[in-house]
């Protein structure tokens, strides 16, 4: 029975990590539903982007207050989690503060963790106030009702709880160390928690229970957090890295040229092709142009959808959204993720995708949203993790126009004009040089 805690600990750890790995596998499978796109070039520039934007958060600090607080939370959270290594070893082998042999360095680490924990706690409180007290508008757009709003708050509460557990754990440990209790070797420095310790009753059984409880809750909490990620916008703490690595490196104004179209246009312009020739026997069916569902998007666009932090920086700079149009680039990303999740669940259930009479277009994203976009790239520029909502909008417009001929009437007129007289207005091509004489 002596090993019972070790066994329980190992079981919790295996289950927690096991579930997490399962979820990651699902995400990878879903992302792979997207069409192929080559992003294996220019590894150096990509690594640099990842280092600067994901690790260095260079785009976050464009809004300094949120940026600096975010760096604190992010750095603090990661550094404090070094502590988890020790917790795991202690848990598996029944040791206590196994790394304390490092002496002064160990004290330095624990001390740093404590100070960071307080900073994280304070930042999280400010984040909460920005959302709930200041009510910064980008957190209150209509796509932020229900789960997205709760999700953001859950994470804030979660971090407050984890940081508190860590500090109370240290405080009780410190008290036990001071009381020379067996097993609680004197190790670490406690710049913050020794204050908390003064509020604790100096009762050994109580302190022992408190120390054990907070220790267990801390590690269980971290495992729950890890498994919560999959359901949350907080996936970005992992996916920001691949997402910035695989992001578009071309000038933002350059839209891709659809290859399937190039082939057809070449044929049409080639004087040697016979316009009445029957299609070849084994010709592959013509490719679908543009996107009406997640399968038609590229895997990078799907990765974008899972990475979106729902911060709304894109939407807050979108000229269409600012002026009250339906379009919100953040909602484009959230809806893409929702549809992808729905498709994923369908596959979980049926082993393969069973048509469900739904698609991204109309069931999630409306043409009205798509047609409001000015292709200004403000959203792409603003996104702290290099997501490209515009590329999805354009791919869906392509479907509307080329597969459904469903452009707004005025745009059809514009396109007819280009076809007939080489200008978007009804002018005679032969008058193109008239300005020279005027």
């Amino acid at each position, binding site marked *: 029975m002596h090993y019972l805690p070790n066994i329980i600990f190992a079981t919790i750890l295996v289950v927690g990590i096991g579930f997490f790995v399962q979820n990651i596998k699902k995400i990878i499978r879903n992302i792979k539903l997207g069409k192929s796109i080559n992003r294996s070039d220019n590894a150096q520039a990509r690594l640099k982007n990842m280092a600067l934007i994901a690790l260095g958060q260079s785009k976050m600090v464009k809004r300094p207050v949120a940026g600096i607080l975010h760096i604190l939370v992010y750095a603090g959270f990661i550094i404090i989690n070094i502590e988890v290594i020790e917790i795991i070893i202690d848990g598996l082998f029944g040791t206590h503060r196994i790394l304390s042999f490092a002496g002064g360095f160990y004290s330095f680490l624990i001390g740093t963790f404590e100070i960071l924990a307080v900073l994280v706690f304070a930042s999280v409180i400010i984040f909460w106030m920005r959302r709930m007290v200041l009510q910064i508008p980008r957190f209150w757009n209509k796509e932020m009702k229900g789960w997205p709003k709760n999700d953001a708050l859950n994470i804030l509460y979660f971090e407050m709880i984890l940081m508190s557990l860590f500090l109370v754990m240290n405080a009780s440990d410190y008290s036990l160390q001071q009381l020379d209790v067996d097993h609680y070797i004197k190790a670490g420095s406690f710049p913050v928690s020794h204050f908390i310790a003064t509020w604790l009753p100096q009762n050994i059984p109580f302190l022992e229970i408190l120390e054990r409880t907070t220790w267990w809750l801390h590690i269980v909490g971290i495992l729950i957090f890890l498994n919560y990620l999959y359901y949350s916008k907080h996936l970005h703490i992992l996916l920001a890295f691949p997402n910035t690595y695989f992001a578009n490196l071309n000038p933002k104004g350059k839209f891709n040229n659809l290859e399937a179209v190039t082939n057809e246009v070449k044929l049409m312009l080639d004087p040697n092709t016979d316009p009445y020739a029957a299609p070849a026997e084994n010709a592959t069916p013509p490719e679908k142009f543009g996107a009406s569902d997640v399968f038609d998007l590229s895997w990078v666009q799907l990765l974008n959808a899972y990475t979106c932090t729902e911060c709304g920086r894109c939407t807050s700079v979108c*000229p*269409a959204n600012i002026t009250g*149009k339906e379009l919100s680039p953040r909602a484009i990303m959230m809806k893409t993720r929702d549809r992808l999740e729905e498709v994923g669940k369908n596959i979980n259930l049926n082993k393969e995708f069973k048509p469900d009479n739904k698609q991204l277009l109309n069931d999630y994203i409306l043409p009205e949203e798509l047609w409001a976009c000015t292709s200004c790239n403000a959203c792409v520029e603003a996104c702290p993790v290099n997501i490209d909502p515009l590329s999805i909008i354009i791919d869906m417009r392509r479907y509307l126009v080329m597969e459904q001929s469903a452009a707004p009437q005025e745009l059809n007129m514009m396109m007819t004009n280009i076809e007939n007289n080489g200008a978007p207005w009804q002018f005679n091509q032969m008058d193109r*040089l008239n300005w*020279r004489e005027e």
Partner: protein
Amino acid sequence: MNVPTMAEMMAQGKQPEVLFWVGCAGSFDDRAKKITKAFVKILQKSNVDFAVLGTEESCSGDPAKRAGNEFLFQMQAMTNIQVLNAYEVKTIVTACPHCFNTLKNEYPELGGNYQVMHHTEFLKKLLDDGRLTIEGGQFKGKRITFHDPCYLGRANKIYEAPRELIQKLEVELLEMKRCKSNALCCGAGGAQMFKEAEKGKKEIFIERTEEALSTQPDIVATGCPFCNTMITDGVKNKEKEGSVKVLDIAELIANASDL
């Protein structure tokens, strides 16, 4: 105006230094034609050896592509590329950021490889090479704010050339709160120019014009015929057309020297 076409040049066995791509707005729109002519006057004053395509030019395909009609875009692109390649064009300058972006970024994959410059870049180069002098003239001391076109700024990261030109006019350059990479669109891009806006609570061009006017300018400078239309409409809507002018950078430079 004495503006040669590529065909006329070719007939004389000549190859100009640069092709001026006029664009549909610059060719047909009454307001934009003034920008075209102002730019031509500067080219002539600087002795730039240039030509236009005239009736052989056709829409770059930008509005079709942004509207989602990749077919029409590529038809336009390939037709234009055939013409440009037949004339062995090497360098292109245009006063339209949409043509600029499309020719520069989207034509190469389709077989059109040229050095493409926006007219503000080109004018900046003329200035640096000592071929162009800019003086303040009637604009000296005026308050000017510059509206960054999306397809020049964010799309191609050109923020400084237009500003350096404006500053040469010995004016006070004012920045709007949203400028450079944070600039707000005028509302015309992505084929919006050719349709009514979706329903909302405000027009984008009004939002942007209000921001421009809040800098208390004498002049709002633009570098795009479409932005020019939008901001001009905005200024009219705010009944400020008496006190605030909307002018392209080419017009500013040409007018300052009374060209």
